[in-house]
């Protein structure tokens, strides 16, 4: 990479430190996200939320963790045991693998050891494709989990996973295609550098931004599109038979995915980790990710969810044509201007 030549050399030690950093910090944040979610939802419904474990209920996370780890791990009698056991790992693992190609924190050098820790664990030149592909592969988790557990609700949940996957994936790809055309690269670093002049991509590509957000909600199974585990209709969908830490892995994967979507939205559309006036870039990116996380909770408090057929209708008949038109218009404008 040309951009890498100006920076210190990326060593294996730096990458490993970065990987451990991502794993530790994101897993902690993903767990902490459950607390944030419960608290924010409670406030929006004028409740107090968890507050008895520790100050302001902050240790609720620890209590939940102890509960999850000590719960009995039940595998149903007629379930396909191997797939049943592997499925949660797929969700959690793909969520973290996706984060490998995403710039999460700014790069820094450990002073005494002189180890340079890059901002991306591995700056693959097709970063955005890798991340979206990994998140899409994560959908195998719910799909296999639902089919392996020999439960009607699980089967319905995995069927819904399949249609959701088929619906939003097209929109995700087409909506990020227009920014990719403008930047001319698939690397997140190039996306960030493209917006270094202070003009965010969302100014050029508002339609693509909205489409990507909608598809991102579908990708993370968040509320308007949480058909996979909709309690009111299908008990818990694909997690009906799961208990203990296997169930917890699904949750960690979901929250890590929320963070990933927040990171992609921030870097591709919202100016990335560039400095903003006097605010340093690392505060900006954390602020943007935090806001997108909050936005997902906010939407969950405010909006109802939709039916599977409405999701397919929305994705195939509304969003996909809009995305195609957006790509075509972007292409024409680029041809005329550039």
């Amino acid at each position, binding site marked *: 990479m040309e951009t890498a030549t100006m920076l210190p050399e990326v060593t294996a030690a730096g990458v490993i430190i970065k990987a451990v950093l991502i794993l530790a910090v994101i897993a902690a944040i993903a767990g902490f996200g459950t607390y944030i979610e419960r608290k924010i939802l409670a*406030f*929006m419904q*004028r*409740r*107090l939320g968890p507050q008895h474990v520790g100050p302001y209920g902050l240790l609720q996370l620890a209590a939940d963790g102890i509960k999850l780890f000590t719960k009995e791990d039940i595998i149903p009698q007629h379930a396909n045991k191997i797939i049943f056991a592997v499925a949660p790992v797929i969700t959690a693992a793909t969520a973290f693998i996706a984060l490998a190609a995403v710039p999460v924190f700014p790069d820094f050098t450990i002073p005494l050891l002189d180890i340079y820790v890059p901002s991306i664990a591995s700056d693959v030149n097709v970063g955005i494709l890798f991340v979206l592909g990994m998140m899409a592969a994560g959908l195998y988790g719910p799909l296999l989990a639902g089919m392996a557990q020999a439960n009607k609700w699980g089967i319905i949940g995995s069927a819904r996973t399949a249609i959701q996957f088929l619906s939003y994936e097209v929109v995700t790809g087409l909506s990020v295609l227009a920014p990719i055309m403008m930047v001319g690269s698939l690397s997140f670093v190039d996306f960030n550098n493209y917006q270094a002049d202070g003009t965010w991509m969302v100014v050029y590509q508002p339609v693509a931004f909205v489409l990507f957000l909608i598809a991102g909600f579908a990708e993370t199974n968040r509320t308007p599109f949480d058909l996979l585990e909709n309690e009111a209709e299908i008990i818990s969908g694909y997690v009906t038979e799961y208990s203990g830490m296997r169930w917890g892995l699904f949750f960690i994967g979901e929250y890590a995915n929320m963070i990933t979507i927040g990171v992609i939205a921030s870097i591709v559309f919202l100016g990335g980790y560039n400095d903003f006036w006097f605010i340093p870039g690392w505060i900006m990116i954390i602020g943007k990710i935090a806001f997108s996380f909050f936005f997902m909770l*906010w939407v969950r*408090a*405010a909006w109802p969810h939709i039916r599977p057929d409405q999701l397919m209708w929305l994705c195939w008949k*509304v969003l996909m044509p809009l995305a195609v038109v957006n790509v075509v218009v972007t292409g024409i404008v680029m041809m005329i201007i550039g």
Partner: protein
Amino acid sequence: MSLEQFKNRNVGTQNYVKLDLDHSPTSGWCQFKQVVKRTFKPELFVGLWVTLREMGNALFRGKMHTTQYPFEKLPISPRYRAIHDMLRLMESGNYRCIGCGLCEKICISNCITMETKYDENQRKEVSEYTINFGRCIFCGYCAEVCPELAIVHGQRYETASEQRASFSLFEDMLTPIDQLNLQQEYQGFGAVSPNADENIKKTPLAY
């Protein structure tokens, strides 16, 4: 109106007032217009605003709705028929019960048991008085029939207990002698709750 007219359920031939509902789209263009209208209507953002406003109300204006139950309790109505109280006479501190046995007699679930005897002043003394709360249906007849306002319904509605004996003995229901000045007169079955004024609201016709 004759019976035949009532039996005519044929909607098309009568003067029914139909609701002014939106017509469902007929052509593809109409469907497209509906989609555009629904897409750009700011209703979704109204929803977002409402939840955010409620969050602000809850956090900054003290409109949190939660009652932290075991630590704080809402006032209950004085009509509420909870665990019984045995009241004392304010002047002498003696218990009011004269041992007439009317409550035992009227109790429809046969849960009141009392034994009486004459004391040295030839006054009736209650030697044994229990209410079997496993049987009591809290009908309130005992309080209603009591000529001395001695047995009344109190405010203890948390009736879960490890032992029935915890609150079914006479001494447990009797006002403690050191709290005699705090003894509340039973307001009766028609009384309004102390916060009745606050609870009055407009009928929500606007919804």
